[in-house]
């Protein structure tokens, strides 16, 4: 589903990604951990072309990306590669329901009724069926993130990218989001790439864990194995912190 070869990216003089080679199989869940600035979010953003890379190649959901990403069918790529952001980025001028139906209506051309029906089912799935008429400002952080997840799932996704989905939340709200993600992981056949600082989230759902440092993947394997015997300093640090 995802195939990365020699991915490199620079911001000015700074090398952010220094040769990423990795594969993610269809339906697989991968977590990426690493210290701030290690390039994990940038890597994620390269996958749906919110950033472009300078060297190497990437293949995702059947679309081949080259450096600069010119000629990529952006809209259809993004309709099958969804993203959830740390800071939710809900549209504040729309209701919860409108947030979820926007892309199906505008991008897929669904009728309002069809989009609303699907959206209500998704809101039900994230436990917010009764908040469709609310504005984002009236929701708690955990509720906002669950709406953002429903919004991403409203498109016919093959891949879901999660960029620190619980980092902006109070600890007591993180469980709500984790619960939703657990359900999604169990029910759907989505390929998920998850960037996080939170150990529990990183290890619980994923079948593979990538540890990144300074623009490279320095360790990879089954989460339980790495948790039991981390080899890299970064991994040792990460599990020593016991961030929950």
């Amino acid at each position, binding site marked *: 589903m995802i195939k990365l070869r020699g991915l490199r990216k620079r911001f000015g003089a700074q090398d952010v990604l220094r040769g990423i080679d990795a594969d993610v199989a269809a339906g697989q869940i991968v977590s990426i951990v690493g210290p701030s600035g290690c390039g994990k979010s940038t890597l994620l953003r390269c996958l749906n072309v919110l950033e472009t890379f300078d060297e190497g190649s990437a293949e995702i959901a059947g679309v081949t990306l080259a450096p600069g990403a010119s000629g990529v069918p952006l809209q259809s790529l993004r309709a099958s590669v*969804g*993203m959830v952001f740390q800071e939710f980025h809900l*549209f504040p001028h729309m209701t919860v329901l409108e947030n979820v139906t926007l892309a199906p209506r505008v991008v897929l051309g669904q009728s309002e009724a069809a989009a609303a029906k699907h959206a209500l089912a998704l809101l039900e799935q994230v436990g917010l069926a009764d908040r469709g008429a609310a504005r984002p400002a009236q929701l708690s952080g955990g509720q906002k993130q669950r709406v953002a997840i429903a919004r*991403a799932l409203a498109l016919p996704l093959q891949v879901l990218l999660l960029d620190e989905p619980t980092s902006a939340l109070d600890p007591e709200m993180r469980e709500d989001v984790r619960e939703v993600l657990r359900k999604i992981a169990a029910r759907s056949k989505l390929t998920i790439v998850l960037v996080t600082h939170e150990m529990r989230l990183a290890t619980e759902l994923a079948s593979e864990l990538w540890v990144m440092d300074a623009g490279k993947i320095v360790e990879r394997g089954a989460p339980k194995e790495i948790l039991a015997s981390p080899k890299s300093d970064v991994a040792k640090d990460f599990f020593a912190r016991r961030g929950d």
Partner: protein
Amino acid sequence: MNVRLLIAVVAALLLFARAARADTLADVRARGVLRWAGDIQGGEPYVYEDEKQPGKLVGFEVEIADALAKRLGVRAKFVQADWSNLVPSLERADFDVIMNGLEATAERRERILLSRPYFVYRETLAVPRGSTAQSLDDVRGKRIATLNQTFAWHLLRARGFEPVLYEGVQEPYSDLARGRVDGVLLENVIADRYGCGLPEIRCVEDEIARGTYVIGIRKNDGALKIAIDEALDAMKKSGELRAILERWKLWAPEQNDLDAIADLAAAPAPRAIDRAQVVLFLQGALVTLGLTCAAFAIAMPFGILLAIARLYGGAVGRVASATYVEILRGTPVLLQLYILYYGLAPFVRLGPMTAAIVGLGLNYAAYEAEVHRGALLAVPRGQSEAAAALGLTRVQTLRHVLLPQSLRHALPAVTNDFVALLKDSSLVSVITVVELTKRMTIASVELRGWLVPGLLCAALYFALSFPLARLSRRLEKRLHGDQAPRLA
């Protein structure tokens, strides 16, 4: 005690002011200077700037003023004043006398003192060369141009015309030549210089009316009037006046009839504000409102487009938009209106209302562009990223995500600009549109005062702008709630 002192000081000042006003002649002599007023916008041959020596004033009135002052034993000093406001400015004692093609009318004679005449003029009707008109009756119902507050204006109104009003002497004739008006009625002094010589124009030979130019003096300056009349008499007898007029090619046999010509009767004008006046004011307000709404209907979408071009239009869009904004914002809207209406007339012949709407709309678009650019920049970056991540195109992102949010940010500034435009729309009177402010200046002549028409005009502007401000506030509340950032 303090109050008493204050009253005493005020009383003394008032007395002094009255005393100072009581004998301008003595003041003039003491000063050694006669301050005479005119408007150099009236142009050749009255009083205007010498082309060869910018800053130096020339004209037949300059020479008459110099000769007159000499006979009073003083020096003449010109004071520039807006022609429409010469009489009120005289009354405010901004200068000593008016001498600027001031026609002797019964109406003026009631308000200020008028000297003996120094010139006889003929009202001259200019028409397109192809026209067969010989008199005002032949152009009845047509669009006849003149200047505000001239005798020609009174004459036209008395004969049932609704004249098209201009501010300068050249524009009526250039518009006649281009067919924007059907005729021009002004004094022969003006018509001969600016109109009759043009190939597209013919001046009617039959005399429409005859009148005189006089010097305007404050009501209680009898001594000054006597001195000026004596000096003018002496100038006539000695042939000095004739010599001046001949030098300016203004001498004609009728100048011998100077004292034989009676005052022109004033056009009947209402003395108090009446229903008809109020209706005219309401019409003016309607013109102002319509003009403002139409111009804003151009400014708003065009401004948004400019803002989008500036932010998302690539190098070309950015430079084009920035250039447009800087030029339109960096030059006076009055100048832009002149260029649009008069300057472009050889290429595009816009009607006055169209030119006004387009001119104000294009000018305000530059301001709206900056408002919307700022508002778009205020939308968090995450919003456009989230929209992009959902597969929205750039246009869809703007339409569904960015603009709905930026418009809320922009609303207070947009309301502000709308109210500003409402008032700036008064500038279009320079291209002959009669809107609310122009209506007030016209009425102030008929009512012989600024206060009542001024207050009525202000009340109407307020009545137009205040509900709008309220509406915008309500809209803002509905969109935003009252979410001022809390200052802790």
